[in-house]
Each structure stands twice: as structure tokens, then as C-alpha cells.
């Protein structure tokens, strides 16, 4: 799991909509992300082609990360769910 996303940042970004999508490394803002179980899991075709388990957490990341936000809610909702889970 990723650490270091502050409550203040989440509040500004998700609730107030003040900030643009973070350029932090998440599978959910990588070019290769496709929804597998919204919003928690994604299917990565790069991993699939390399014969690796292609189903990964939206909040995960790997060395192939290539920032290309799709203007979708995946990361935002995965972060919010994760934040709620942590209380």
C-alpha cells in the first residue's frame, strides 16, 4: 500500500476539487490501467504480456509506471475508499 497521502491533500483534492490529479506513482494514474474491479483493482496489459499476474491494486505501482491520467475517477475513489478504511 502507498503511504504519505495526507488527509489535507485528500480533502483539497477530492472534497474541494482544488487540485489536479497528483503525479504520484499509482497504477490508477498509469497509461496502462484498465478497470478490473472498480475502483480497487485494475488489469495491466503490460504485466499480462510479460506473463505476470496482470490484476493489481489501483493504489499499487511498478517500474513500468507511465503517467497518463485518463481523467477518470478510479484513483480518486480508490484513495477515498482507502482513506475511509483507515479511518
Amino acid at each position, binding site marked *: 500500500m502507498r503511504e504519505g497521502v495526507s488527509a489535507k491533500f485528500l480533502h483539497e483534492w477530492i472534497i474541494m476539487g482544488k487540485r489536479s490529479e497528483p503525479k504520484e506513482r499509482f497504477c490508477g494514474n498509469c497509461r496502462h490501467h*484498465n*478497470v*478490473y474491479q472498480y475502483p480497487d483493482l485494475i*488489469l495491466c*496489459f503490460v504485466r499480462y*504480456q510479460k506473463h505476470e499476474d496482470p490484476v493489481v491494486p489501483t493504489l499499487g505501482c511498478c517500474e513500468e509506471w507511465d503517467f497518463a491520467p485518463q481523467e*477518470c*475517477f478510479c484513483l480518486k475513489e480508490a484513495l477515498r475508499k482507502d482513506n475511509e478504511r483507515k479511518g
Partner: protein
Amino acid sequence: MKREDFLRKPVVPMKLTPRMSVNRLIQEFSNSGCFGAGRVSSACDIFERMVRDEQCTIFLAIAGAMVPAGLRATIADLIRRKLIDVVVSTGANMVHDLVEALGGHHYKGHWSVDDFLLYKYHIFRIYDVFVPEEDFVKADKAIMDMFDEIAKENEGHNFSSCELMWEIGSRLNDPKSVLRAAYEAKVPVFLPAIRDSEFAFMYRVHSKRHPAGDFLKVDTFKGVSEIVNIAERSPRLGMVVLGGGVPRNTVQHAALMAEKGLDYAVVITMDRPETGGLSGSTLRETVSWGKVKRKADKTMVIGDALIVFPVMVAAVLERLGDKFERRGLG
């Protein structure tokens, strides 16, 4: 023709009653005999004659999102009852069949929704049907996994689209699936435009995953001989077309190449002939190519196939009764 020849059949006003059956309603359509009602009643009569003709091979051509909109179980049922001998479809309809066979769903939506909002939620829209991306992606992964397995089990074999659809159908458990029903009933399923579907886009990923060349081999031309051979073997040929496009012409051209032409034809479409596109081309125009016989039993219904086809099938099933059995292509 004399004047009285034009005035032989008066329009009989429709009489609608409580609890009337679908077939009874169609008979009232026939009494009217006008506009769409007349054509729908003719379509029912022609489909019934096709089904009762044991010498006729019946092709069902499917274009447009018929499976996402809820026709898959109807088509699977027709296949199991042997009321259809051959299916010719867009690749997309069979991909959507796979989506549901794997536990995914299509949802009732609305055409006026904010499409960019759908995009943000990873939801695809087909007019007023919604498909969540995850159901599509799970089908994508299943397709690629099946391609791996099929390639391994059939090393070097060149598959036609029809052979490939049976392989996929054999791996499904859903009794409502068109592909499963076709595999069990040994009804060929041709996808003449398979390259324009998720099967082909996932084929690219699958093939790149096997750089040594041990990936699935698909020969898109192989299906031409297969479908023409079926047409050549058949004493008579009939087609029911939902939409049009490549599936309709694939059936028509098979009839032409078999040097026969179609004996029966029902086309249900919303398309117009003025653009020159095949989907809207009239059956009279098709006669000029030799694809449909001049004296063929034929009609074209201008209407939504999602309304007309189920009504037609329900009426004909009612006429046939529970005990009717058809031999099928065999």
C-alpha cells in the same frame, strides 16, 4: 391487369381483445395488411414456411447490438430448438455473449446521460445500454487465456472464425450463451468481420505475448469455403437478417457462390436504400445480383429488430406448438 385486380383484398380493421396471444395479434396485423403491420405478418408467415421446409437451411445474420440489448437467450433457444442452422454475426455480438457468459452484465441506461461522466466511471454506452469496463476487461482476459489454451492444444492448426467460436463455446457453462448453445447443437457461428472485434484486438496482445510464434493461428478466408460448402449442400436457402452489414452480405454472397440464390428472406432493418449501403438495400435490389431468387418468398420490415424479431419468433413458436421438431442441418 384489369381495374378489379387492384381491388381484391379490402383492409379489415384490427380487432384487439383482452388476453389475445401474440399470434392472434399478428393475424390482426395480417387483416390490416398495411404498412409495418402487414410486413411483420408477412415476415412471420415466411419464417414459419422456412422452419417447416425440412430442405431449407436457415441462416440468421446478426448486426447491431442485439446481444447487449437482451436477445442472447432468444437466439440460444432458437439454436437449441434447431430453428436456426447457421449464425453469421458481428464479432461484437459474440464478445457481448461472452461478457454475460462470464458473469458480467449489461445495464438499462439512458441515451441522454453525460457521456464524459460515464467515461470517468469507466462505463461504456451502447445507446441506452450501459456496460461496465470491468465486465469487458474480464472478457478480454478470458479471451486471451482461451487463445493461449487453444493454441497449445492445437499446435499449428489454422482456425476459421467458426472453428474458433466452437472452441470458445466449449469452454463456457452458461446455458443462455449463444456460443455454448451453438457448440452443443453443432450450429456453425461465422464471424466474417472478426478482425473488427475484441477477439482480434485481444489476439494482438496474445500474439505479442508469444514472440516465438507459438500463438493461435486464425485464417479469416477459411470461413468463405465453409459457408459456401453449407450453401452448396443445401437444397434450399433461407435467411433472417437483423440489421444488415457484413453478416447479411456474407449469407447472400454464399448463396450466390453456391449458384443458387436465396429461396426465403426476411430482413429487419431501420436503414434506407438511398445511400447505396447494403444494410438498407431492398430485396428487389438483391435479386439483381442473383443473391436472392426472383420468386423468393421475401419481405423487408422497416423497424427496430429488438421489437420485430421477438414478436415474430413468439408468433411462430405459437404456431409450431410444443411438439414441433425440426431436424436441422445435422
